[in-house]
């Protein structure tokens, strides 16, 4: 692949190798619905692309043309399709093509076509591509740690090509950088439930609970670890309500001042609805938060809902509904 800057700037009409081709203009019809306006070089490059696409010319010069078209508009899926056809016909080196995609992806990390092209390449290259793909997604995530495409690609690589060894550690690194990264929490769950190198959810539960509790105590207003904690007891609510670490955590959060108590309160509410027998300390902690002291006769669940109707006023209808669902 020739990356010379000067050569790239030459339009097809300025190159002798294109003199045999008649460019095809965009056919928008007489009164296009949503007509597109073009800069001249864009129009010209696309006109030549249309010509080779129509002729199904799968040549080196056509490949170069798809490159130029992609530079102008990496979202054009037809250009990527045709590029794949050419790559197959010419039996091009796919590792080199990965180099190419990496360069384009630097500035277009949210583009569906690029990620799909990459997956197509990796699939063809097989398990040997695993390391490289993990490195690539790592690079993208270092610029945008929540990039949905990157995470989706990374999950596919792990499941199809392998490379699980360092994944939990990688998740930990990302959470150190941003404990609020929901994608990293999701990946953590993905790993502990699906990695062939770990023992599965139940085996990992103990260590993961400790990890999550620490994260919550550092930032109790963080939605993700609260959900993660609940997920660790998937299909096993009994263990969840009987694990002293969970209620202790809630108590700790509820008794610290100046803290966002919303998720702690809603967790206690969930625990109650699954049969938790609350301790005296827990009741007292919740009562302290209740601005309406005349309702001391209310059940704990009722009190929690009353507190949340004020503390999380945006969702007042939700908390009122929760209250209505309580078995007194």
């Amino acid at each position, binding site marked *: 692949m020739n990356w010379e800057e000067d050569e790239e700037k030459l339009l097809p009409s300025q190159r002798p190798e294109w003199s045999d081709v008649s460019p*095809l203009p*965009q*056919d*928008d*019809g007489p*009164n*296009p*619905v*949503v*007509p*597109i*306006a*073009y*800069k001249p070089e*864009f129009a010209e490059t696309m006109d030549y692309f*249309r010509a080779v*696409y*129509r002729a199904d010319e799968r040549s080196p010069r056509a490949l170069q043309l798809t490159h130029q078209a992609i530079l*102008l*508009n990496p*979202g*054009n*899926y*037809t250009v990527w*399709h045709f590029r*794949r056809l050419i790559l197959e016909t010419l039996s091009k080196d796919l590792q080199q093509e990965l180099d190419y995609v990496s360069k384009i992806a630097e500035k277009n990390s949210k583009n*569906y076509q690029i990620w*799909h092209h990459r*997956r*197509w390449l990796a699939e063809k290259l097989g398990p040997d591509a695993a390391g490289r793909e993990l490195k690539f997604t790592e690079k993208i995530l270092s610029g945008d740690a*929540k990039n*949905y495409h990157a*995470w*989706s690609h990374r*999950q*596919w690589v792990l*499941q199809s090509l392998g490379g699980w060894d360092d994944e939990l550690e990688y998740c930990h690194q990302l959470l150190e950088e941003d404990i*609020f*990264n*929901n*994608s990293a929490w*999701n*990946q953590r*769950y*993905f790993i502990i*439930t*699906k990695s062939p190198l770990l023992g599965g959810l139940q085996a990992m539960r103990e260590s993961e609970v400790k990890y999550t509790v620490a994260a919550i105590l550092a930032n109790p207003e*963080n*939605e*993700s670890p609260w*959900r993660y904690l*609940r*997920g660790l007891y*998937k299909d096993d609510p009994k263990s969840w309500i009987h694990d002293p670490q969970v209620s202790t955590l809630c108590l700790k959060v509820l008794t610290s001042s100046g803290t966002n108590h919303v998720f702690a309160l809603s967790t206690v509410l969930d625990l109650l609805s699954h049969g938790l027998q609350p301790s005296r300390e827990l009741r007292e902690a919740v009562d302290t938060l209740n601005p309406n002291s005349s309702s001391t006769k209310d059940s704990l669940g009722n009190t929690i809902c009353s507190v949340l109707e004020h503390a999380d006023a*945006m*969702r*007042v*209808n*939700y908390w009122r*509904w929760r209250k209505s669902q309580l078995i007194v």
Partner: protein
Amino acid sequence: MGELAADKHVKYILAVEKRKDNFESAVLEHLRMNGAYWGLTTLDLLGKLDAVDSNEIIEWILKCQHESGGFAGNVGHDPHILYTLSAIQVLALFDKLNVLDVDKVSTYIAGLQNEDGSFSGDIWGEVDTRFSYIAICGLSILKCLDKINVERAVNYIISCRNVDGGFGCTPGGESHAGQIFCCVAALAITGALHYVDKDLLGWWLCERQVKSGGLNGRPEKLPDVCYSWWVLSSLTMIDRVHWISKEKLIKFILNCQDTENGGISDRPDDAVDIFHTYFGVAGLSLLEYPGVKAVDPAYALPVDVVDRIFFGK
């Protein structure tokens, strides 16, 4: 509170039809079919669909169809399931589904179903729950759902359900409001909503509302007008839309308008585009904002259009 500048938005959409000097729209050329759907559905919701010439549009749509039965994003492009649905939806707006060779289109869509029940976007095989929704929505409108294996399609969607009650693009994928809309709508259309934990998902969805009143798509992300559609339509389909603060969301959407030149942007003071204009108006429709027609949360078309498909004529 401000008001919906409906006339300005109509003018904006119609102007986009005629504008010839906008380079940014050049990069959207390949998805013009989607653009047509967003623009025309918005016009219909604002009661102004008659401002366009349906015959010209239909003529252009048919030029985008391929031998395979699928539709491309524009003339000279390859077919893809994304544009096939938009084509069907636009024809439905004009009550011209009869111009379609229904057998041909439905065979194209059905042919994209995989062994595990998932759907690919096109011959290149990308799999995503977005495509499950598109296939189910499109085939339902064409009344050809029996051409696919519905049970497997539903099973695949359920395999993408997460512990938080949400859905991702593939099994294990992070819950994301856009993917959730696709999965919930697909389950609604196939009569499989009982697989959704409505209380759990409803809470996850209403947690998307942030201080400004706008909605985000995942925890700790910025609000964006397009989530006014994806989160709201999902909440509507599971009967939990009252769990968010409607007034605050309306205010957020209205603040995202360009009241001078028309159009709506992703968040206040950003540049407008057709995509966000549609989602803002559709969101307001779900919030029962006056002057906007009712929209169907699963089919993403005006309710009277959906009624016409299933009950009319």
